[in-house]
């Protein structure tokens, strides 16, 4: 089963000259390399990338906690940062789901809201459906697993686009881990409000990734990566997940993951 749903179906534009990048708040302070890698990767495809400095957070944390007004004012601040009619590429599936599928309701009645949401593309979705990218793998043979965040999977279809990108890499074998479709237990404030349940979920998710016997796993969502990597590190497991933008940049450049030219 492909598990496409109606939320995944949309019209895709032709390859643009310019895009905006939405970096997300987590990548901003915790994992900026993946933002830089995404920009480099897009530039290699001949696309100019604009990163509006006024962007902050999509508003999802407040939205999911029931604080609609607080989420709304932050969401409006984001929209104002992206005035040009060009695609907005987001390096996180769940923030993408928020901006594409939840903004219409949160910001109902705001002028231009539908058109704004139509411009939202998750990174892997953009590569596959807009750029129709063909990847050349210059890396060593290896096995990887993939974890898609639940919003990325159900709202943005990243399980399809992410896997299709990994499958384009000739030397990479994508291993499907047990309970592959299951949530890692992050869920934003859920991980703190219901820490015991979240702990049980991430224990199972990390165990099934370890069982998959891969050298690394990739994901398009930093919330899940922070959760699963944090658990793996705590368990003293060597396995780590990395962002798919960094991974694709490294593979196509023929470098080992984690060796991209970032000045930090």
């Amino acid at each position, binding site marked *: 089963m492909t598990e496409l749903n109606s939320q995944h179906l949309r019209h895709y534009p032709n390859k643009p000259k310019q895009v905006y990048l939405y970096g997300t708040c987590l990548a901003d302070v915790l994992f900026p390399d993946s933002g*830089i890698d995404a920009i480099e990767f897009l530039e290699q495809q001949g696309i100019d990338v604009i990163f509006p400095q006024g962007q*902050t957070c999509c508003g999802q944390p407040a939205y999911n906690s029931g*604080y609609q007004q607080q989420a709304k004012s932050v969401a409006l*601040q984001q929209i104002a940062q992206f005035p040009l009619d060009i695609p907005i590429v987001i390096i996180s599936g769940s923030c993408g789901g928020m901006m594409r599928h939840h903004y219409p309701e949160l910001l109902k009645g705001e002028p231009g809201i539908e058109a704004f949401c139509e411009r939202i593309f998750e990174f892997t979705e953009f590569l596959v459906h807009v750029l129709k990218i063909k990847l050349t793998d210059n890396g060593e043979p290896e096995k990887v697993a993939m974890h898609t965040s639940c919003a990325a999977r*159900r709202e943005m279809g990243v399980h399809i686009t992410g896997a299709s990108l990994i499958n384009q890499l000739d030397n990479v074998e994508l291993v499907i881990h047990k309970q592959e479709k299951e949530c890692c237990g992050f869920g934003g404030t859920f*991980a703190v409000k*219901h820490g015991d349940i979240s702990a*049980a979920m991430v224990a199972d998710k990390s165990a099934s990734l370890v069982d998959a016997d891969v050298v690394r796993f990739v994901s398009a969502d930093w919330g899940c990566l922070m959760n699963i990597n*944090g658990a793996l590190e705590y368990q003293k497991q060597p396995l780590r997940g990395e962002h798919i933008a960094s991974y694709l940049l490294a593979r196509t450049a023929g470098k080992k993951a984690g060796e991209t030219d970032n000045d930090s």
Partner: protein
Amino acid sequence: MTVKIQEPEQSESKYAETARAFRQNVKKDLANAELRENFHGAMNYLMAKRAASFPSDDELETLRNQCKLIKQRALLKLPYLLEKLESNLQANGIHVHWAETITDANEIIAQVITSKNGKHIVKGKSMVSEETALNDYLHARDMEILESDMGEYIVQLAHEHPSHIIMPAIHQNKKQVADLFDKHIDGFDYTTDVDALIGEGRRILRDKFCHADVGITGVNFAVAETGTLCLVENEGNGQMSSAVPNVHIALTGIEKVVELLEDVPPLLSLLTRSATGQAITTYFNMITKPRQSDEKDGPEEVHLVLLDNGRSQAFADEELRQTLQCIRCGACMNHCPVYTRIGGHAYGTVYPGPIGKIISPHMLGLEATKDLPTASSLCGACGEVCPVKIPIPKILQRLRTESVKVHSGSPDELKGAGSNRKPMEATIWKIWSFIHKHQGMYRFSMWVATRLRGLLPSKLGVWTQVRSAPQLAPKTLHERIQARQPRG
């Protein structure tokens, strides 16, 4: 095995207290490795069964859309259809009773039983009777009530509640059931063979059916057009409970009404495949009349009790009304990563799992159930499998909003609205919002945070109980990009 139980305080459901204990329940049940293994195995099995019964995505999607519309049409006309159901049932000779509260329902049932001098009651599976705590109520009045569904029978023997709406004893494995039978059933020849265990249960139940004065069952679909009560089951106990005793009392929620007889086949197909992966159940009963003069069996009297118990609160709100589309298949719990880990009892409510989190606030109020809407990662698995497309994650978000809003005291407000609002949390979100809507403030804050990264404690409360603390980057993405490309 009749046990006299202290009658619960009738002004509040006994489940309000157990729902309030959600966090303690979770801690206890997460620590029970055997329980977790029982749920994990059973849920994997049920998910695979469901998936195998829907080989075509397109057919499934078409059927889900069709059934969603059937239920939405019924809800749109709910008051009219309930009246029509009542008049058609009455024309068929079935008595109809309306119960606004669980106490009303229990009183009505007890009165019917008393009027027939009933003492021995058998019950088919009915989650609504769990809602009303009917067994406790009748026990307290010296009536013997025996659960006749095998899972319910096990649960009753163990003095427990169902942990799943379709498979009430799914939390127990065969060894635990064998031990339970060994403890409670005289002359039980110890075995862990599932068929033998079921045979043993059936032997006892068969005798009880023959001597029961009153049978109580639930209803899956109540057809307004024809005045027909449909009962879906696998063990024949529903048929025995509704056909053998002289009096049959059916108890159900007002949302079970459907408009037309032709609405039933698609709903039935979707229900059984979503629930257990079966093309159809072993038994499907359609009850239209009491025993007629030319008939050899069947009850002389049939009653239907229609319960509200908070459903009309959900009905009054267009978004929350979708909660009432539920056909009680249990697929949402089978696919829920939270349910799979904590099991059904931890919720403390009659209905566990995702559907329980969105229906229980109407039955028990948002104060008693305040921990339920937040106990979800909003992964969306429930909404993805729901046969009637209830947007469960969306409704969970809505209930979160309702439970933290400023209590206005308006009569339209949900019961318990605002009861989970904490001043500290509200202030944190205000500050969060202020920072994130002012870009200069945001960038300054993040600049400071990354500069002070060395001061970030390695222990971050519950997060670092099972994870290492994340490390802040030396410079933010904003800064690095600014350094990388000229500002423009």
